[in-house]
């Protein structure tokens, strides 16, 4: 996107939510353990296409890329991920409930 035309630079600032900080921490910890590199993170981000920059937030794109890289690295399988995600959804309707319940 470098060099594309665009509107004014937005000046809004938000505090990072806990789940966003966790995504960031997972990226740093997993790359520190050699599971993937920052290049790997960026490759998947670039492959998502321009539309994802309109429809997804920053850390949504990051978790998608972290997940893709971890599956490629063999950290877990897509089947394990799917099972875990449905288990989590069954815990509750909010991030707080789903993240902390039943553990």
């Amino acid at each position, binding site marked *: *996107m*470098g*060099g*594309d*035309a*665009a509107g*004014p*630079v*937005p*000046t*809004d*600032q*938000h*505090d*990072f*939510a*806990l*789940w*966003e*900080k*966790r*995504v*960031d*921490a*997972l990226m*740093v*910890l*997993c790359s520190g*353990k050699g*599971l993937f590199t*920052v*290049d790997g*993170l*960026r490759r998947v*981000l*670039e492959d998502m296409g321009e539309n994802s*920059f309109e429809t*997804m*937030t*920053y*850390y*949504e794109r990051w*978790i*998608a890329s*972290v*997940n893709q890289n971890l599956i490629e690295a063999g*950290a*877990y399988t897509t089947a394990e*991920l799917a099972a*875990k*995600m449905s288990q*989590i*959804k069954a815990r509750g*309707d*909010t*991030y*707080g*409930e*789903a*993240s902390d319940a039943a553990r």
Partner: protein
Amino acid sequence: MPHDHHDHLSPSGHPYRSDDDHPLTYWQTMEIAVRELLIEKGVTTASDIAKQIDAMDARNPAMGAQVVARYWTDPAFAAALLADGAQATREMGFDIGPMKLIALPNAPDLHNIVVCTLCSCYPRNLLGLPPDWYKSRAYRSRTVREPRKVLAEFGVTLADGTEVRVHDSTADMRYIVIPNRPAGTEGWDAEALAALVTRDSMIGTGIARTP
């Protein structure tokens, strides 16, 4: 009063992000799943994740400001920083990891500005996490196309004769701008000088405060 929603502002003055009490999203579900799988597989631990978040929260632009102030006051350090930024800052106790750090000194007729057109690479170990605008499509697109206009939006108006250099970060390389030392600070020590160094002045979207 800045605006009407002050009840919803955090202590830092920013609005709270929708978080724990909002409907669970697909991507949040994925974050929880990835985190729990990594813990179950023994890749990491809940405590390591919490420590990483604490370390990240503790980083802030004051660290970069110390580097800039020392550059202004310690010629041997300035030379070392230009030669190997990562090593020179590591010796100050700031570990920037395996990346290269390139210091970009401004000059009276030269202004540097940093962007990451691909993503959001940023010297986070010296400045903390990047501001939202740094990651925005508008900043990333336009800084390489019309840097003077972007600078003007940040309140930085440069003389016509001033050269502007735009530096695009990569995954392995981080930049920190060394702003010009403000006039009227002769004889100041590094600690006093550091208070003049703003986050934006180290990204290049600002200049150091004047005393």
